[in-house]
Each structure stands twice: as C-alpha cells, then as structure tokens.
C-alpha cells in the first residue's frame, strides 16, 4: 500500500474534495487509513465536505432526449447519404452513354420526320461531276 503523508493527504483533499470515490484509486486506501488514524485529518475533511455540499448546488443541465434520438439515428442518415452518393455516381457514370443514346435517338427521329430525300439522276451527275472536277477530272474524261 502507498504510504500516506499529511502533505499528500492535504493535496488529495484540496484537489479532489472530501468524497473518497474521487480520490486517486492507487492512494485511496492509504488516505482512508490515514483519515481514520489522524484526528486533524477529520477537521480538514469536514472543511472540504462543506465546499462539496455548496458545489452540489450547481444546477443539473439535464439531458436532451431529442439530441440523443438524433444521434442514435446517425448510422441511418450516413447510410442514406452513402446510398445517395452511390446513386449519383452511377448516374454520373452513365451520363456519356445516355448522351450518345439521346443524340442517336434525335438523329433517328429527325430522319424519320424529314423522310427520304428524293434526288434525280441529273442531280447525281451534278454531284459526281462537282466532286470529280474538284480533283481535276470528270466522268467524260474517264
């Protein structure tokens, strides 16, 4: 058991007060033994008891059940947020494919709406000739 001196006993009282439950665990037994064997220690204890009693008038702030309820729900909130983030990631990942599909669908619809473009044989000739002229030759030359 740790040896208890009057000096250390005073230090314990002045820091932790009169309640042995607050005293350092490793020194508690020695302090209690010192107390029972030393009359002057009892006087010191009674002074600290008065202060402890006065301090016990500090109002208890109570607890907040609403806050406790919210905190108990943290895993649910975090899970929902994670799932939302995952969903956004999935949607974001599909966006390029979705964009391409939309463009293709629009093109198809536009094509169907405008219908087939009718061209005459002359027009084909003109087109061909224009193209070939551009590279310095013509159908007749071939």
């Amino acid at each position: 058991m740790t040896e208890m001196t009057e000096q250390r006993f005073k230090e314990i009282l002045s820091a932790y007060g009169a309640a042995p439950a607050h005293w350092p665990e490793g020194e508690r037994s020695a302090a209690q033994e010192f107390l029972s064997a030393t009359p002057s220690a009892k006087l010191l204890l009674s002074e600290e008891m008065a202060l402890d009693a006065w301090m016990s008038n500090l109002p208890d702030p109570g607890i907040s059940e609403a806050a406790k309820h919210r905190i108990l729900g943290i895993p649910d909130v975090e899970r929902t947020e994670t799932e939302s983030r995952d969903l956004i990631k999935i949607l974001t990942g599909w966006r390029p494919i979705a964009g391409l599909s939309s463009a293709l669908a629009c093109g198809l619809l536009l094509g169907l709406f405008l219908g087939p473009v009718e061209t005459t044989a002359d027009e084909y000739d003109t087109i061909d000739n224009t193209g070939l002229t551009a590279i310095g030759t013509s159908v007749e030359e071939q």
Partner: protein
Amino acid sequence: MNDTALMERIAEQDEVAFRSLVQLYFDRLFRYAARLLGDRIEAEDAIQDCFLTVWRKAETWKPTASLSSWLHRIVHNHCIDLIRKRRAMEDSNEIDLIDPAPSPESRAISAETDQLVDAAIRKLPLRQQAALHLVHFGGLSGAEAAATLEISVEALESLLSRARRTLREAMARDMAKGAA
C-alpha cells in the same frame, strides 16, 4: 463487451454497437458540454459532432487511451473551439470578457437553483472549469481527466486545487451574506 471490442465493431459499421456506445456515454458527455458551454443547443452540436466522429473514425481510437477520455477529449476540444469563437465575437463587440454575464441559456439552466455556484464556477479560468466539471461533476478519475485535457495528473491536481480555493472564497462570501 469491453471498450476495445465495442470500438472494433463500430469501426466495422456495426449499428448496434454504435447505439450501445451512445446509450453508455451520451448523458455524461452532454452534461459536461452543457456545463462547460452554458448552452444546451451548443452542447447538442458538440455531442453530435463527437458521435459522428466516432461513427466515421472509430478505427482511429487506440486502446492505449481510455475510451471515456477519448470521447471527453473530442467533446472538450469542440467546446473550446466554440468558446474561442464566442469570445472572438464578444471581443469584436467590445464586451468585457473577464466577468462575462451568463448567456440566456445559462440563465435558463440556473433558473431554479442556486445561481451563485454557477456564477462562481463560470468566473474560473476555462481549464479550471473543465477540470472541475470532469472530476467533480463528471466522475472521471484524475488520470482520465488529465488524459482528456492532455496534461499530467500533477497539473490536473493543481488546476483542481486552485479552482476549489477560489470557490471556497466564493462560498465564504455567500455564507457571510446569508448570515447578515
């Protein structure tokens, strides 16, 4: 279940383990924050922040530190940040910080009981208040409180002694007033 097993399960996102931890520690952490801040709404924020940290970063807790000290330290640091911000705002408004008037919330807390003790404790330096709330009202051991405040046990005892000495003087004034 011991602290280590509990925290290991929370690190694996075990919701039952998390809820057990909240049931075990919520009341004392809330009381500590509410007393230190003198404001229940701010205390709720501090506690929520603490448990959110636990849920997200349970794996950062090491069994070398007591779980109680670790949780109190998270709450304590959050409270200190809030108090510093509050004081900075009060500074900018040129309010005297040496003897601050209790906030409306702290007045509400003290309304039905002896406001003298509350006022006397609020006048103490913040570290002395924290030490007192942790040991006398929170029931933490000296070692746990010292770990929470990240100081030695000797330094904690010095803070407690100075706090109690100041309070003894306030009590003597109170008694003298009562006797008059």
